Structure formats: structure tokens, C-alpha cells
């Protein structure tokens, strides 16, 4: 009888599981079609390309957050590290006159260091990830103002613009970079041993440790990947805006976490999909875009997004009960 039961459960599961797993994709398609039909000015080449470009920055940063949440952590540091990376990049190019390529490498190294600090505080210092990364965020906020005096660093060479604003074959370069990063992340999470270990550690850290996985190293790695992807996204934004801004990340953290959770990543770790995160970024991008097209004020936009996050977290909590 037990076997019968299991068999039935398994077969019932496949269809409902499929629908559940890809619900996010259907929501995206539905939202897109509805917006295309009902919202004037939505379904034009320029607008659609614009949405894709706009979300690509945030989606890359959200993919970074995805890795941290996947191992059961959370990363608050982007709230200031985005500003830091953008200032550092602009400062290195404008003040120190470094070549763009070198400046980017330095920023990525800084990102690794920040990720390591987050990871070491949380993994070896045994601080809760929330507190560890909050500390980093607050400290970096101070660093940002010290470094820039609170003034944006602009006047970057026009050659730098191509990363964030350029096109290849009619497709914005940030979108192409997002696609490449997404594919790498997907292969990494689904088809490598380290990727599997990330899920295992997030799902059951103790069992993973007793199965020989170096759980500390895996968690440390997640924080570093998170920080590096944040830096990559920031480099593209900085290229798009052509300035380093101390307050750049201030309002982004909320969107980042919304995207990761909306994408089906479990806040308790161990569950989530790379594509889910990217599609969630698209959904949020469409909502933002439609609200602008409909002339909804930005104050209302915040309220609406808050409600969306609440709804998503409620759904997340309920789906775990089963």
C-alpha cells in the first residue's frame, strides 16, 4: 500500500510540479501579453528593448544575491557596495587615470575582498548573515562619503559608454552580458559538483558536512560570487550613467531581494533556479515600465512593489508547508 501511495504521489506530482515550477514563466508571458494589448506604447521595439536593458543590470546583481540566499544567507551589503563599486570605478578612471580595463579588474578584486569579508564574518565569525552584511553595508556607506565627499564622480571618457549603452546586432550589450552570465550560472548550479553543493548546504548544512562537503568554503564562495556579480552589474550601470554615485545602491536592495524571492528562491535556502530569478527581474521590469507608461507616480510605485513582495513571501511560506 505504501508503494501504491508513493506511486500515485509521484505521478500526480509531475504535472502539478511542472506547473508550479514554471508558474513564474506563465506569469511573465501573461503579464507581457496583457501589457502589450492594454497599455499604449508598451509593445514597441524601443520600449521592449529598453525594458530588457534596464532589467539586465538589476538581474545580474540579483543573481549574485541568489547565490547567497541559496546557501541560506542574505546579503544586505549591496545597499552600499553598489555605490562603492561605482565610485571606485569612476574614481580610478577619472582621478587616477587608470585604463578602463585595469580599473574594472581592480573593482572586481575589491568585490572579492568585500565578499570574503562578508563570508568570513558570517561563516567563521558566526554572525548571522543579515548582521554581518549589514555591518559591511554601514561601513561602506561611510567609505563612500569619505571617498567622494558625497559628490558624484563624472566626466568619464566616452569610450567607457559602450559597455552599458552599446549594441551588438541591435541587442544592447548589457543584455548580451546578462544572457552569458545567466548561462554560466545555470551550468554552474545544475551541472557542477560545487553547484550541487550550494543547494545541499542550503538544504541541510549538517547533513552536507557529514557527507564530506566543505560547507564553510561553499558558503564563503556564495558570498564572493554574490559580491562579484554585484560589481559586474554595477560596472554596467556606471557605464550607462557615466558617473560614480555614492547613493546608487540605496534604493536597489529592495528590488534585488524582491526579484530573488519572486523568482522562487526559498528564503530558508536550498531551493531556487537561475532562470526563475532572471524571469522575475523581467516581471518587475515590466511592472515598473507599465506603471511609468500609465503615469502612476513613483510614490505609488513603491507601495505597489511592497505589496508584491509581501504577496510573494506569503506564497513562498505556504508552498513550503507541503
Amino acid at each position: 500500500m505504501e508503494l501504491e501511495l508513493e506511486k500515485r504521489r509521484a505521478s500526480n506530482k509531475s504535472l502539478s510540479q511542472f506547473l508550479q515550477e514554471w508558474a513564474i514563466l506563465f506569469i511573465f508571458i501573461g503579464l507581457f501579453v496583457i501589457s502589450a494589448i492594454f497599455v499604449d506604447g508598451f509593445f514597441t521595439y524601443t520600449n521592449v528593448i529598453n525594458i530588457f536593458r534596464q532589467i539586465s543590470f538589476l538581474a545580474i546583481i540579483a543573481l549574485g544575491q541568489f547565490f547567497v540566499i541559496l546557501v541560506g544567507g542574505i546579503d544586505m551589503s549591496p545597499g552600499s557596495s553598489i555605490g562603492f563599486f561605482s565610485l571606485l570605478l569612476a574614481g580610478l578612471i577619472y582621478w587616477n587615470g587608470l585604463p578602463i580595463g585595469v580599473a574594472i579588474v581592480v573593482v572586481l578584486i575589491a568585490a572579492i575582498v568585500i565578499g570574503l569579508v562578508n563570508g568570513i564574518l558570517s561563516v567563521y565569525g558566526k554572525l548571522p548573515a543579515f548582521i554581518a552584511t549589514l555591518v559591511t553595508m554601514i561601513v561602506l556607506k561611510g567609505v563612500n562619503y569619505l571617498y567622494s565627499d558625497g559628490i558624484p564622480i563624472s566626466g568619464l571618457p566616452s569610450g567607457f559608454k559602450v559597455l552599458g549603452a552599446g549594441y551588438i546586432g541591435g541587442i544592447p550589450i548589457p543584455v548580451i552580458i546578462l544572457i552569458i552570465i545567466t548561462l554560466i550560472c545555470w551550468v554552474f548550479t545544475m551541472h557542477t559538483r560545487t553547484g550541487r553543493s550550494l543547494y545541499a548546504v542550503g538544504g541541510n548544512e549538517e547533513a552536507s558536512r557529514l557527507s564530506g562537503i566543505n560547507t564553510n568554503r561553499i558558503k564563503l564562495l556564495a558570498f564572493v560570487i554574490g559580491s562579484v556579480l554585484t560589481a559586474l552589474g554595477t560596472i554596467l550601470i556606471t557605464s550607462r550613467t557615466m558617473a560614480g554615485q555614492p547613493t546608487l545602491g540605496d534604493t536597489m536592495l529592495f528590488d534585488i531581494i524582491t526579484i530573488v524571492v519572486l523568482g522562487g528562491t526559498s528564503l530558508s535556502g536550498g531551493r531556487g533556479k537561475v532562470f526563475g530569478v532572471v524571469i522575475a527581474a523581467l516581471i518587475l521590469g515590466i511592472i515598473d515600465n507599465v506603471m511609468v507608461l500609465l503615469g502612476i507616480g513613483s510614490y505609488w510605485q513603491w507601495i505597489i512593489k511592497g505589496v508584491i513582495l509581501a504577496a510573494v513571501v506569503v506564497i513562498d511560506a505556504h508552498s513550503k508547508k507541503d
Partner: protein
Amino acid sequence: MTAAHKESGHTHQAPIIEVRGVSRVFPGVKALDNVSLSLYPGECLALLGENGAGKSTLSKIITGVYQPSEGAMIVGGVNVTERGNYNIGMAQEMGVTIVHQELQLIPEMNGIENIFIGRFDRKLGMVDWKSMKRKAEEIMAFLGADIDLTVPVKHLRTAEKQIIQLAKAISVNAKMIIMDELTAVLQEKEIANIYRIIDILKKRGMGIIYISHRLDEIFEVCDTYAVMVDGRLIHRGKVADVNKDQLVEMIIGRELTQVFPPLNENIGEVVLEVKGLTADRAFRNIDLTLRRGEVVGIAGLVGAGKTELLNAIFGSYRKTGGEIRINGQKVNIRRPQDAIAHGIGLVPDERKQLGLVMHFNITHNTTLASMRKFRRKSLLMDHRREREATIEAAEMMKLNYVSPSQSVSKLSGGNQQKIVISKWLLADSDILIFDEPTRGIDVGAKSEIYKLINRLTREGKSVIIVSPEMEELIGLCHRIYIMFEGEFRGCVSGEDKTQNNIVSKMLGV
């Protein structure tokens, strides 16, 4: 005797609850099929059956979690199914309670808070701690238990926590308690305390439904038994009229021939040698040898340091002295990775917390410790080979499964345990350490695990077992070390492997 009058149509007492022809259908499955059962004041009824036989569904019907698809629940003479508002809260109000093995206490709160949670006494709108403290102490005195009720319960021992759970059930004026595997994680001495409490409750006219996989306990405390097979209640009677073998036969629906297979006689050279192993506070000066094809047991009370010792050998508990040799070579095991690399695998006591990633599928759990074997030159995982190896291991384990990509969370305890064992087979472990390998596993699956352990030794694996079940150790092990307060107090084998010998050493006599 309450048991005696209950079969003979006693007239003076009404049943506390009566389950009348209850069926419960879940989509595609009949979990309960026309079950009738009543429980009388002062009766302790053993509810028996394999996992999946319907015991927990029946418990949930009784406590109002589920409603019957057919039939009715009568509580205190009232047909609550007909009345239609029977739920968990209503059940509690009517004195129907359940205590699980899994603790339902709030770890950060103290005993008093846990006992009265949700029903705090009030005085002038404030919580009346004095009155609750007095009541809690009364209950403790009634149970004859001496437990510190003022510290957060997380600091208490499991046995103490379970007594607090019982106190909580009693404090709501319970007329009956379902004890669901309450003793599964307790040791003999503490179980005896539970027996004593059950006796007190029975004398007070409370009814008890006792669920346990350890049949010996049934004969200690229960008056009557009911056996469920495939959702039907097929046997009902007095415990005094049956013996253990008969009960086992009823439960698994067949005769259980030879629970323990004959010991492997082909013993080879020493594979593991532990010398003077010490860990501050947990254990001292442990010497242990293990040969190829041998099963060695470790007996001892809770707190003797058994689990710590196993974990120290496996590198997940800090040791402060001594050495470990594998195949004659001194090895330095500081982390589980090191132990695994030296061919040691640990099957932990808490399957769900320590053995499996519950939402991983069978394949991913099976290959968790051996992922590097399934890597291609490109560094990517070879999913097909992973799947094939999993299927191969599952077939060898006689795993009851549908697909290697199904989640492990819905599998029975025995099947989950087989997956944990498979994990170590794929990791090429030659020394397998089992910490309570049959905890929470039903009779039929237990004997399968025994056969499996036996077969592994015949294939040249070596095994260390810790188990609270004496019979299991005696039946499975070539030699049994006895541990008392962190030290080995002797080692018995052959003729000397008797319960008396072991228990007296376990108690430090």
C-alpha cells in the same frame, strides 16, 4: 483489571472515545478502512502496525486533525462527527490529547510557560505567574517528577522535555492521551519513568493509546492491543494472551523467520584501530579494534559518550588525544572529509536532520558523498551515470521506490535509511558506523536493515553499531564494547553476550 472487564461487555463504564466504522480516503488511497475501536477509562491500548498501516491517520482522526470520510467519532458519548465542529481545539477541550516523539515545546521558554502556553492564568489583566507555578508544581508532584521548570526547556534532557509535554497534556484535564513513539529516543531508565507515569495516569482513570515500535514495551505497560495492516484494524485483544512472536506475525502479516541472520564467519585483518582516544568531557582513553567483516557494537546509557565517540572517529567531534589507525596506518582525521577519504561512512541517528537533504531527490542524496566520481573531464556532472549508479545501488538495497528523481521526503523511514547506506556504498566506504540504525523504523523494515548489515560484512565491509536496543546489539554484533560515563568498561563476545552481562556493566556495577 481494566483490561479484563473491557472485553466482557462491562456495563458500569462508558468509553472515553469510540471510533465507529471510520474510513478515510485520500485522493486515490484508502488510508483507513472501516476501523472501529473504543478506549475505556484506565485502559492502556497498544496501537500497532508497520509504518503506513494507518496508525497516524487514525490518531489524526481521533484528535480532530482529519474528519472521517465514512463512520463517526464519539467522544464522551457525543457523536462529534455528526455535530460537525470537531477539530484539534475542540478535541483538546473535550480532553483528547496527543504527545509526539517530536517535541512540540518552544525551546526558549521555560517549563511553566510551555505547560500553560495559550492558556495563561490572568489576574487583573496580567499573567498570574504565582498561580501557574503552583499548578505546575502540583502536576509535577502528581507525576512524581523533579524537573526545573524555570529554565528554558532547551537546556533540559529529552526525557525531561517529554515529561513536560505530558504535563502539558494533563494540565488541560485530559481524559485520554495518545503517546506517539514517545520512548523512541529515550533510554531504559527514562522509559521506566514513563511507565511509572502511565501507571499513575491509568489509576486516575485516564485512557492511553500507546504507539511504539518497540514491542517489549507493549508487554510492560499495555493492557490491550490493536493491530493495523493496510488501513484496517485486523486484530484486537488482551496483551496477556499473546507473546511477542505472535504480535510480530500479526503486524507484518507473515511469520518473521530468523530476525537476525547468522554472523559472518569470514573475519579478516584489523582495519580500524583506535588507541587512547580522548575528548574532553565526552570520553576518555578509548581503545577499540575492528576487523574486516566484523560487526562491533557499543552499548551504554544516554550520556555515556557513544554518539560523541562515533562522531570523533568520523571527524565531526573534536578529540583531544589518542590516535586512529586505518589498515595499520596512522591517520589524522579532523573533518568528515578526511574520514570519508579513508573509507569511513557515518549513518547518523537523526536521518532527517543529519543523514539526508530532505528536498533533494533520491539520486542527489545517494551521490552526495561521492559527487567527484561522477565528474566528466569537462568538470560537469555526468547525470546519466549518476542516475545509473543510484538505480544500481537502489536495486541492491531493495529500495521501494518509483523513480530515482523522486523526493526522499515521502519515503518511509526504512527506505530513507537505505538511501543513507547507499550513499556510503557509492563513496566506497569500507567502515560503516551506524548510530541507532533502526530508530523509528518498523519491524519488517528493521529485519531488512539487519540483513543488509549482515550482507555488507560478508562483502568485506566492517561495521560499528550503537543502539539502545540490547537485542539488536546481541543479535548483530561479534563483539560488544560497554561504555559507562565516557569509558569502556569491558567487551563481551560469544557466550558472554548476554543482556545481564551488558546491562550490569552499562550501569557501572
